């Protein structure tokens, strides 16, 4: 029997804000333990939460980007449970009335080849809600220490419908979702810093059936590749259980990306009763049409929309767009170069190939690069007009990358401009023809390749700076063609 996997993802994303979700304490990563705290973060007696409006703006922006329905009122609930990383022993969250409902993430499945666009699908979302992050436990040999720097950081939980059917789809979903969130400036989604975390609910069922099997929640999928590997592993595990006559048990399992194995954390019977109730310390916040309109105006174009536009408006090949699009900065960089008048395909090639290669070699980011989009446009312009030649262009680019000079300045300084004096070119061509009567005869007899015999001497005379097209045309004219 063949089985189909049914997967829903719960993705937690830290929202990028200056201060925490309910206090004035700063957010941050990698700071000395317990320095990003205040009475509210530490839940000292008498401390009260006050909502961070910027975080609410960011989740509403996320909802608008993903086509969610934005609730007219933002409400806060308490989720009660005891754990040492939770300062209040309740988490302020949103229970039955999340701020964003519905919506979808457009994903792209792998194509049949690297240069062929894969199938696109829309994965429906259940909800997105906002809550606060918890602290971090550091377990030592004899004791455990807790660091509350992370506690209270705004955290979005994005819950998909159980509409993914394999590890590759889950991978594509997470990649697409991350790109949208980075585009929106909502989070940097750096998984190493815990800015994006993923849990997966996985079940299997006989292919072609529609009822849901018993689900297993897989936790601690700490990188995008662990998400793919962990889900693939869990699907195999469940299939093996079923095929050996067993039944899948509802439980939460912990996946270890290093060993590629998972183990049970807790069963359904040990599930918490969170005793949710509305947080009496926080007032409901009305989100009106003006508020949404103001945020809608700040929403960027979605990544896949941008890719389609690049392919149509700039006639870029799919492979080039699939390098440009996932990187918001790079795609904007390209567009700026194109708007500066460069032929788009040529500019894209310089960016995707030469610039990316040099950035990688120098281990710097695009924003640190001295090469500006206008420089790329100017370089392309010099090539397209014939002012410099291909090998000279490579030299100019290396110089641009090293010191950030404008390409024209480099060309002039290094004397790389092609010779454009028609009179001089004609003289060199006449001399070349005169010194090689055999080839002249061959050419006139119809042997077109004989023309190449004149080109070498002309180029030598021009010290390499003659435009090959101009040389070709001049020779043909002089030979009476």
């Amino acid at each position, binding site marked *: 029997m063949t089985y189909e996997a049914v997967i829903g993802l719960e993705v937690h994303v830290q929202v990028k804000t200056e201060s925490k979700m309910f206090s004035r304490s700063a957010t941050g990563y990698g700071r000395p333990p317990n320095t990003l705290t205040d*009475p509210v973060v*530490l*839940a*000292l*007696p*008498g*401390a*009260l*939460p*006050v*909502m961070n409006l910027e975080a609410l703006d960011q989740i509403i922006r996320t909802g608008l980007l993903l086509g969610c329905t934005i609730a007219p009122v933002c409400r806060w609930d*308490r989720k*009660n449970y*005891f*754990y*040492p990383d939770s*300062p*209040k*022993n*309740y988490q302020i969250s949103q229970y039955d009335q999340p701020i964003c409902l519905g919506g979808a993430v457009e994903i792209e499945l792998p194509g049949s080849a690297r240069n062929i666009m894969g199938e696109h699908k829309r994965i429906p979302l259940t909800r997105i809600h906002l809550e606060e992050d918890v602290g971090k436990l550091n377990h030592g040999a004899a004791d*455990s220490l*807790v660091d509350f720097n992370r506690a209270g950081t705004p955290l979005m939980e994005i819950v998909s419908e159980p509409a993914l059917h394999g590890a590759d789809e889950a991978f594509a979903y997470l990649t697409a979702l991350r790109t949208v969130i980075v585009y929106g400036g909502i989070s940097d989604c750096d998984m190493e810093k815990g800015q994006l975390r993923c849990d997966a609910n996985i079940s299997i069922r006989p292919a072609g059936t529609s009822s849901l099997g018993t689900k297993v929640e897989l936790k601690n999928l700490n990188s995008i590749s662990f998400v793919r590997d962990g889900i693939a592993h869990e699907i195999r595990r469940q299939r093996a259980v079923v095929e050996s006559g067993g039944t899948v048990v509802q439980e939460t399992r912990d996946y270890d990306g290093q060993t590629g194995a998972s183990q049970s954390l807790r069963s359904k019977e040990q599930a918490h*009763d969170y*005793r*949710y*109730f509305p947080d*009496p*310390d*926080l*007032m409901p916040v009305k989100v009106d049409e003006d508020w949404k309109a103001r945020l809608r105006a700040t929403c960027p174009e979605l990544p896949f929309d941008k890719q389609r536009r690049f392919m149509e408006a700039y006639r870029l090949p799919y492979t080039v767009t699939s390098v440009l699009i996932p990187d918001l900065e790079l795609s904007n960089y390209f567009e700026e170069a194109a708007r500066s008048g460069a032929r788009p395909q040529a500019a894209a090639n310089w960016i995707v190939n030469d610039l990316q290669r040099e950035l990688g070699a120098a281990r710097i980011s695009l924003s640190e690069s001295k090469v500006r989009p206008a420089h790329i446009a100017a370089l392309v312009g010099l090539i397209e007009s014939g002012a410099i030649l291909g090998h000279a262009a490579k030299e100019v680019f290396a110089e641009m990358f090293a010191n950030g000079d404008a390409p024209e300045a480099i060309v002039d300084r290094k004397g790389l401009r092609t010779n454009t004096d028609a009179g001089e070119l004609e003289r060199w061509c006449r001399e070349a023809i005169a010194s090689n009567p055999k080839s002249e005869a061959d050419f006139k007899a119809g042997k077109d390749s004989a023309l190449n015999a004149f080109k070498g001497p002309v180029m030598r005379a021009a010290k390499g700076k003659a435009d090959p097209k101009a040389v070709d045309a001049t020779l043909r004219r002089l030979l009476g063609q």
Partner: protein
Amino acid sequence: MLDAGRLSAVELMRALIARRHSVDGRVKAFNSYDEADALAQARASDARRGSGKARGPLDGIPVGIKDVIAVAGQPLTASSRMLENFVSPYDATVIRRLRDAGAVCWGRLNLDEFAMGSSTENSAFGATSNPWDLERVPGGSSGGSAAAVSAGEAVAALGSDTGGSIRQPAALCGVVGLKPTYGLVSRYGLIAFASSLDQIGPFARTVEDAAILLGAIAGHDPLDSTSFKAEIPDYRRGLSERKGPWKLGIAREYFADGLDPEVGAAVQGAIEFYRKRGCEIREISLPHTKYAVGAYYIIATAECSSNLARYDGIRYGHRSTAATDAVDIYFKSRSEGFGEEVKRRIILGTYVLSSGYHDAYYLRAQKVRTLIRRDFLEAYKQVDAIITPTTPTPAFRKGEKSADPLAMYLNDIYTIGVNLAGLPGISVPCGFTGGGLPIGLQIIGQPFREAELLSMAHAYEAAHGWHARHPNP
């Protein structure tokens, strides 16, 4: 007297310190006090007044603080073993405002543990006595605040009121106590019992003093999301400007069984006073009153079960030395740190929020709460304020009700509805029993109309002078 230079703030403070030394061994109103700190504040006040920079009528006035309001650098215990050694690193907003007004923060006053109780017998550090009869309770939970003001150990005090915790002890100790409209005074720095019901308010010997103190602490605070952006009038000036006559409501449900005849008679006397002053007295009905105590004990315990979860022995507070791991720290520290009444309410609150019971208890109680508020707002279409006894009986004997939590809960029967409806209420002395115990008159006002409430109480006080009588504990 301070302004006239007849008394310095330091002299006043010294007098209170001496008074505390002579009576508090019997009254036991104070959990802790810092004489050096109080005198330093008084000296700073004298210096301000000396250079013509006095900050107003509160400058140099010692105000006692219920030990549930955070004062930077001072202990904050909530009268609980759980916080026995806790020192607050920050000031509550009301403390910041008192300091801005020049007041001297003086001592931390006893209460029922975590403000849960009506007698101050639930304090982990020993019960406070009623200055009028040391065998009797001062009421609660702000029993220390009421007793300290009544016994002359503080000029005024701050308390907190969740179901009557300011008005009931004020009545039982013969002082003025005001519970403001929910949202008028910031709760930032107040140890939460039930967040949707708690309000900080003043205790004082006179209505005028209460008006001055309220004016200093009221007003919007960006650190408390439930604080209201209300215009704060000059409450003191309002006392002489507003003279009525008012339309006053008498709720028949508040004069039912269980009301002590002497208390009933004193309140009837007050009603006659207002009638003679030209006020129109109307009988009104608050039909859902009988459900108030039930709804209150569901909502308050639900919120407290969550609010008190932070006292876990991990970051601060009592940690059991017998604990072996995190879960053990929770169980043992909380078992050792909390008293019986606190545990009872946490368990009750946990139960009413549990899945399967949430709708039947918590949700239903919230609906009842809405109906109770509607009762009051309906009544206010006919009357300006409602007059009731503050408590059904005068101060009861220590130990008399501690074995029966329900009998204790019923002591708040006239005060609880005000918290559920978020309204302001004041208790003002309205006489004494034959045995010499004070009786309190409660006036319940409309939202954010404390000025009117204070004027009504002031008119009564000025005509009777009960406040001139002091106990000798």
